[in-house]
């Protein structure tokens, strides 16, 4: 099932266009080379030799640009219902489209949380009116995220939820998670876990280490994450369930997932661009707009472990944990400010700049991991192979830009990249077969 079929988006015409002379790179499909990418009716018709005749198609000059399978973000906060002052489905999906994404998964920790079949139906109906890229919705594992009673997982799945997560909070009770894994056998659906032992993280606001000691900020120890991963991997193994671990941040966490995978547990995991690019030293600025999030930015050793996990496949995919907040929720002393940063518009550009250009990881690996977020939710990965649905991120790897200079597609401005100079960005995105985004300057260039 294609993303447009499996998820919800605004209905529209399938794209009819040709990307002339694009450098096509889809490592998953084994495609690398310069092609004219022919898209008809929203599907990839062929990867033609440059110069093919293409009557009735919009011509897009893609010479010097890269066409990648568009990215999939398994971890986005769209803030609907209840927090539309931060983001909504329209602005959030537009933000995703601008980052080269063809699909996103919306978290359920809204106000009130998404906990009923009706909640899911309402969100899906909204997405069919307003979403510019396909969106999947999660419901909470526990009613109202209270951590006590399970939601009606079967009925919620029947209403079309992609899976379940109490993201924002851990599932404190091992008993409750065990029951959820038992019901997962009946109704399927991914269970995505925010791993944090609140007894250990307490009221921590940053990574526990020399920087928190120097700043007098309460630290969140790395083991508050890894001990919960170990517990939940053991439960998943015992129940034969399937779990997806969200936003890994620490050495010990990567080791815990690696050990669980080696033991045969059905476990997948994600890491975020900010944890792959930044460390806790940034917090010395006491700037919560860019550097306060949960889990917190950790040490250089932790960052290196995440990169190693990305390289060896322990970390399956990159997830932005796009967490928009209004200015007044961030214009506060560090400890009082809201947790979270936005990331959809900058994920590719930041990782290209910080990890690919210095030679830390290959471009092909970055593309794989940015597209890899579909699999943990049982979705088809985007592909540039002929006859696939058109899910294409057309990127200019040489584009230099300063984040925030032209504003954001997101309703919120708490980008961890704000003010950074990045190299590379999406100039056009096809998602679910439709043109979801064109960078303004790029589309003007096309019109000439």
């Amino acid at each position, binding site marked *: 099932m294609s993303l447009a079929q499996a998820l919800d988006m605004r209905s529209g015409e399938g794209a009819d266009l040709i990307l002339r002379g694009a450098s096509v790179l889809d490592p998953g499909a084994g495609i690398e080379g310069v092609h004219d990418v022919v898209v008809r009716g929203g599907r990839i018709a062929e990867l033609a030799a440059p110069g093919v005749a293409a009557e009735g198609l919009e011509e897009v000059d893609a010479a010097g640009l890269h066409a990648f399978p568009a990215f999939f973000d398994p971890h986005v906060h769209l803030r609907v219902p209840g927090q539309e002052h931060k983001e909504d489905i329209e602005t959030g999906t537009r933000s995703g489209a601008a980052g080269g994404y063809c699909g996103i998964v919306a978290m359920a920790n809204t106000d009130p949380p998404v906990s009923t079949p009706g909640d899911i139906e309402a969100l899906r109906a909204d997405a069919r009116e307003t979403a510019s890229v396909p969106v999947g919705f999660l419901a909470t594992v526990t009613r109202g995220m209270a951590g006590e009673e399970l939601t009606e997982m079967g009925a919620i799945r029947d209403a079309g939820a992609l899976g379940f997560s109490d993201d924002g909070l851990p599932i404190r009770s091992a008993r409750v998670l065990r029951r959820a894994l038992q019901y997962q056998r009946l109704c399927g659906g991914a269970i995505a876990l925010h791993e944090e032992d609140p007894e250990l993280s307490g009221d921590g606001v940053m990574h526990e280490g*020399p920087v928190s000691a120097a700043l007098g900020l309460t630290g969140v120890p790395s083991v508050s994450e890894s001990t919960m991963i170990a517990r939940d991997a053991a439960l998943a193994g015992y129940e034969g369930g399937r779990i997806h671990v969200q936003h890994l941040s620490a050495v010990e966490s990567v080791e815990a997932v690696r050990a669980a995978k080696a033991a045969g547990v059905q476990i997948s995991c994600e890491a975020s661009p900010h944890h792959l690019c930044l460390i806790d030293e940034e917090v010395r600025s006491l700037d919560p707009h860019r550097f306060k999030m949960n889990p917190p930015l950790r040490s250089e050793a932790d960052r290196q472990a995440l990169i190693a996990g990305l390289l060896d496949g322990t970390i399956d995919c990159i997830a932005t944990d796009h967490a928009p907040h209004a200015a007044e929720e961030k214009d506060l002393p560090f400890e009082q400010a809201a947790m979270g940063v936005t990331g959809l518009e900058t994920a590719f550009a930041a990782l290209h700049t910080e990890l690919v250009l210095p030679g830390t990881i290959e471009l092909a690996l970055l593309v794989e991991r940015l597209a890899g977020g579909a699999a943990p939710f049982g979705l088809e990965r985007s592909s540039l192979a002929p006859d696939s649905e058109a899910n294409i991120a057309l990127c200019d790897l040489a584009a230099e830009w300063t984040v925030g200079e032209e504003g954001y597609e997101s309703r919120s401005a708490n980008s961890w990249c704000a003010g950074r100079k990045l190299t590379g960005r999406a100039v056009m995105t096809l998602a679910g077969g439709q043109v979801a985004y064109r960078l303004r300057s790029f589309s003007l260039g096309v019109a000439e």
Partner: protein
Amino acid sequence: MRHLLAIEDLERDEIEAILDRAESFAEVGRRDIKKVPTLRGRTVVSLFYESSTRTSASFELAAKRLSADLISLKAAGSSVDKGESLKDTCATLSAYDPAAIVIRHPYAGAAQLVAGWSEAAVVNAGDGKHEHPSQALLDLFTLRRRLGSLEGRRIWIVGDVLHSRVARSNLIAFQAMGAEVTLCGPPALIPRGIEQLGCTVSYSLDGIEEADVVYALRLQKERMAESFIPSIREYAARFQIDSRRLGPRQWLMHPGPVNRGVELSGEVVDSPQSLIAEQVASGLVVRMAILYELLASGERPAPAEQAPTPIGQPA
């Protein structure tokens, strides 16, 4: 110096300039008329989001001794009670065109934010568990009068380092002046990784006899509820500074208010080695010096540099 936000921001010569200035105000304090006209016509705002006795009292008296107009705001009973954000409070206060804002706040970095939101010189009078630079300066002033130089001196800071902004500012300040600092307390109250600031960490009082100065920190009794300490008795048995543990040639300091019978025994508080009352007295002149350096220095030349003479050793 534009603001006083953190000891970490100061160079040694800037610290010494403030201490020298404080020395000149100590002289003013011995006059019959203790008031000087330096800040006449200028406004100082004292903005306290946390309770405080000595810090707010000494900053306010310092401003008055310098002839400034003073606006004193406490969070309780002000618009803060009605949910006004720090940013909006700053904007409101800016309408009075204050020359300086002295702020105490329960969260780290609040003073830094105010510095970004206001034209005034900002003095951090304590931000969360982060820094308390005026306390560190008054402690340096107190010690300089007793010991002369701190170069090579050994200072033990004992107690609840984890929750103490005083510990952090003083550690940095003592080291900046050449002292060797040991932090001492139970592991649960010593922040992980703090030794990377260049200090030694000790989990017992063994070896405290090497210290020239013992600086005890306040232990809040609520810490028991969070299991940072098993009981006051267990804490006091291992970490209380009492007359057996405090040698006759060691100076004792404490930022106040003291919990007698917890971090200090009553007898050492009242002993001749105790500098606690002198610390309070230093607070006034050092805070005058801070306001002066921020608002008036450059208007007239600094007093000639002069090493203060130690005024006697403990018996």
